């Protein structure tokens, strides 16, 4: 790693020994530490240097760590600077104070240096992701796949009731305002996706309303539909002059309004797609890959995979290969759960995040045990309060080409499939809990001694849950039958791929991933 690539960490602690200890380990792990013994020095360093992450003590003379963090956050430049508190106190109150003050994480003394380094690495990766994605909040807002919200403004209560009923029936959330004043008031706390407004209203009319909306920066771009009783050309032209999106004549009835609203929502969806492709480019440039470009070359083994992203948009599945030393190769297949709910595209970022957390564990792996690797990553994910709602299933294998042993540990994953020399199929179940669910995931290693000409398959639920038009799932049993009957000299991935395409008619609900490990004969 070149000096320029190294990340700068600011360490604030009034205890010299702790500073020295942390600095020593930061240096060992390719970080450049900056030391401050009080917040005064810390501010000076922040002013002069480009800092990538702050590690701060809580109890210090003068200004304490929480206050310091708040002050740092007041500076726009440092609003998203990753900030970890290192504290002797481990109370819930302190934790909530840390989060309130704007901290990203908290580590309690005496701390495990490995855990500290892991947290730093994970936080830096995440902030790199956010930097590329831009502000997280605004992204969530524009991407949340939630029910579109319609604001309906009309002074005629019976009309509002009729439209509200129809819009809600069509799956939209509809809020009614019976005056412009009320509408403006509602929008202070709840920004709609579309505004539908009557023109003729007492006090302030629809045209005035449109003008008012245009003056508010965060409202002006919301699609706006006029509802008019008259349908006279003049009205309509006046409306378009004000940049409305569309108009509907009241007598045309609620169905037409619903249709127009749906059309607009759909076009917003297209906009979304555009942003997604930009996101993909951004992520690609960050090298937050979720799938390797090529298959690993590893003596005595032939390894290949099949990965079909859901609708071409990379989602929650991730694959990785990592060679620990000459004799040991790690194979990883994971699936981030909860794809497509809330900000589903974050599944991609999280998949990248977990993959890089795994990488950092692998870099220092001393014991080649999948369950231990799993537990370390589990701790990182579990302890990260910002992703406490994200869970993942993972299978980790370590292959050894001297002993021909395969060690396997899984977290909530689909059992791996082992086809032995005699063509018999075994389903090997792991016991571990979903990654990130509990502090101790109870991970275990299973060991299989492999022989020449055998096969091991790993997959995620995208494949087994994929459905035919008849709604029937592909299921594990179908996969077993298929694997059982694959001839030794054919390409199993091709055959399975074709079979899934035939079964689902090419329409998947999720990412489809399959890894095949064969021992050479």
């Amino acid at each position: 790693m070149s000096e320029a690539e190294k990340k700068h960490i600011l360490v604030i602690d009034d205890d010299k020994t702790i500073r020295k200890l942390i600095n020593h380990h930061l240096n060992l792990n390719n970080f450049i530490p900056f030391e401050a013994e009080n917040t005064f020095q810390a501010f000076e360093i922040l002013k002069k240097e480009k800092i990538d992450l702050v590690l701060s003590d809580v109890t210090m003379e003068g200004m304490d760590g929480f206050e310091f963090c708040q002050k740092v956050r007041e500076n726009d430049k440092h609003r998203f600077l990753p900030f970890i508190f290192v504290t002797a106190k481990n109370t819930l109150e302190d934790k909530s104070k840390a989060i309130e003050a704007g901290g990203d994480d908290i580590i309690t003394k005496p701390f495990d240096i490995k855990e500290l380094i892991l947290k730093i690495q994970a936080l830096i990766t995440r902030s790199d992701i956010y930097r590329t994605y831009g502000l997280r909040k605004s992204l969530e807002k524009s991407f949340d796949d939630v029910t579109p919200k319609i604001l309906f403004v009309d002074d005629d209560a019976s009309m509002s009731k009729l439209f509200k009923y129809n819009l809600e029936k069509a799956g939209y959330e509809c809020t009614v305002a019976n005056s412009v004043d009320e509408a403006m008031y509602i929008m202070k706390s709840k920004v709609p996706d579309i505004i539908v407004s009557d023109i003729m209203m007492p006090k302030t009319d629809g045209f005035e309303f449109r003008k008012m909306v245009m003056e508010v920066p965060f409202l002006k771009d919301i699609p706006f539909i006029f509802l008019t009783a008259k349908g006279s050309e003049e009205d309509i032209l006046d409306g378009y002059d004000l940049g409305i999106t569309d108009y509907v004549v009241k007598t045309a009835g609620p169905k037409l309004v619903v249709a127009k609203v749906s059309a607009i929502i759909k076009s917003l969806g297209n906009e979304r797609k555009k942003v997604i492709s930009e996101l993909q480019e951004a992520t690609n440039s960050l090298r937050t890959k979720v799938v390797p470009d090529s298959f690993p070359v590893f003596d005595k083994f032939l390894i290949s995979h099949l990965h079909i992203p859901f609708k071409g948009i990379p989602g929650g599945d991730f694959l990785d290969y990592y060679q620990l030393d000459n004799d040991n190769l790690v194979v990883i297949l994971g699936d981030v759960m909860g794809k497509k709910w809330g900000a589903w595209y974050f599944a991609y970022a999280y998949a990248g995040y977990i993959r890089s957390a795994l990488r950092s564990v692998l870099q220092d792996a001393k014991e080649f045990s999948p369950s231990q690797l799993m537990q370390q990553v589990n701790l990182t994910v579990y302890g990260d309060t910002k992703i406490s709602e994200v869970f993942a299933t993972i299978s980790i294998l370590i292959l050894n080409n001297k002993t021909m042993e395969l060690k396997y540990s899984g977290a909530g994953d689909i059992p791996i499939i082992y086809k032995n020399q005699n063509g018999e199929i075994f389903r090997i179940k792991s016991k571990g809990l979903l990654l990130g669910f509990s502090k101790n995931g109870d991970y275990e290693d299973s060991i299989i001694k492999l022989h020449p000409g055998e096969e091991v398959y790993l997959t995620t639920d995208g494949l087994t849950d994929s459905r035919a038009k008849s709604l029937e799932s592909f299921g594990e049993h179908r996969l077993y039958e298929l694997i059982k009957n694959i001839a030794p000299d054919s390409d199993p991935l091709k055959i399975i791929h074709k079979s899934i395409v035939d079964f689902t008619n090419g329409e998947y609900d999720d990412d489809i991933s399959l890894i095949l490990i064969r021992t050479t004969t």
Partner: protein
Amino acid sequence: MEFFREEKNDVVILTVGLKRATLVEAEEFKQVLVNDIQKGFKKIVVDLSNCEFIDSTFLGSLVVSLKKLTGLGGDLRLVGFQPAVHSMFELTRMYRVFESFKSTQEAVQSFS
């Protein structure tokens, strides 16, 4: 409405009225659960006996809520596994973290 809600003393019983509970409804269901948790309910029973299938996203909404509730000293207990749902919980090892019961009555009683 796909989710039916009932209260018995301090226990909330949510019945999922879906044959296939999937990512389409997962977010809404999560919101229903989060609402109750925010209101201060700590004992929740989810009745899945209508569900022939649940996918991992829907399971995720249960898991998130369970994690939240156990953090608050509460629990989420389940009722009525059909075979495919049972194997889903078995496959993901989640049957180990969720307590399940044969009837809502049993589940409610288990809280007292």
